[in-house]
């Protein structure tokens, strides 16, 4: 699983590099563009993911102690918190859409009072990074639900405990990515 996570670091790493270079080149535009984002929602989302990491860690622990019912509740809570995050993210994307900040070719965009093309670059990076993160989180939520069904029907406690633990590593990784995304995108 750690090797898989290394490949994920590869994927996100280049995006972080992109961000670093463009931010170095256009600090003002990046700063004004970042101010357009809803900081409160971003902070709440961070809190939601941190809580989900707690419930996931407790689920892994419950599995290792063979407390299956507790583990199932905690996995359900983890998936639910993941969904809450995705819902809030979708809502903020929608807000940015109505404010004409989405840099898609067929949409009208208005970056005139925040820095023009450099601000457009910020929003490109913002949507790609949060979008890619959301894809990862969606996959994680689906896997948690499937894992829950598997645990419910499994008669092999050691194997299922190990599998939940591996899924936990993936979940925590998705959380760590957001922990870096939040300050870089929202707290400029």
């Amino acid at each position, binding site marked *: 699983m750690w090797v898989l996570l290394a490949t994920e670091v590869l994927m996100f790493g280049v995006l972080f*590099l992109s961000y670093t270079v463009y931010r170095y080149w256009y600090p003002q535009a990046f700063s004004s563009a970042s101010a357009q984002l809803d900081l409160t929602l971003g902070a709440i989302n961070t809190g939601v993911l*941190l809580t989900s990491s707690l419930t996931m860690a407790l689920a892994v*622990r419950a599995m290792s102690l063979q407390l299956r019912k507790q583990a199932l509740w905690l996995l359900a809570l983890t998936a639910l918190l993941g969904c809450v995050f995705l819902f809030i993210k979708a809502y903020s994307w929608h807000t940015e859409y109505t404010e004409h900040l989405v840099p898609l070719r067929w949409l009208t965009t208005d970056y005139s009072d925040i820095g023009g093309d450099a601000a457009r670059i910020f929003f490109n990076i913002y949507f790609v990074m949060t979008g890619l993160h959301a894809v990862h989180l969606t996959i994680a939520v689906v896997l948690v639900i499937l894992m829950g069904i598997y645990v419910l029907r499994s008669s092999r406690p050691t194997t299922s405990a190990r599998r939940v633990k591996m899924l936990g590593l993936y979940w925590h990784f998705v959380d760590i990515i957001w922990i870096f995304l939040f300050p870089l995108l929202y707290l400029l």
Partner: protein
Amino acid sequence: MTMTARTYVLTYVALILLLTATVWSHSFELGAWNSLINIGIAIAKGLLIALIYMELARAISLIRIFSLIGLSWMAILFTLSLADYFTR
């Protein structure tokens, strides 16, 4: 370190406090220090999650070495790329 439920909950409290600190520091205009504080806090949070939730603190050395692969690659990526971009 034994990973009791208490350890996990205490780590969670620390993570929330760090989140509060980073958002709170955003209301102060400290120039370049803002970014430094934010990234520092992000690294602290990342370490807490990696060491406690991902149980690296009590993993065998082999696992710990593998956990460093991604970061090592990123270090090379950033060093070579930024050496190019920042100097010309």
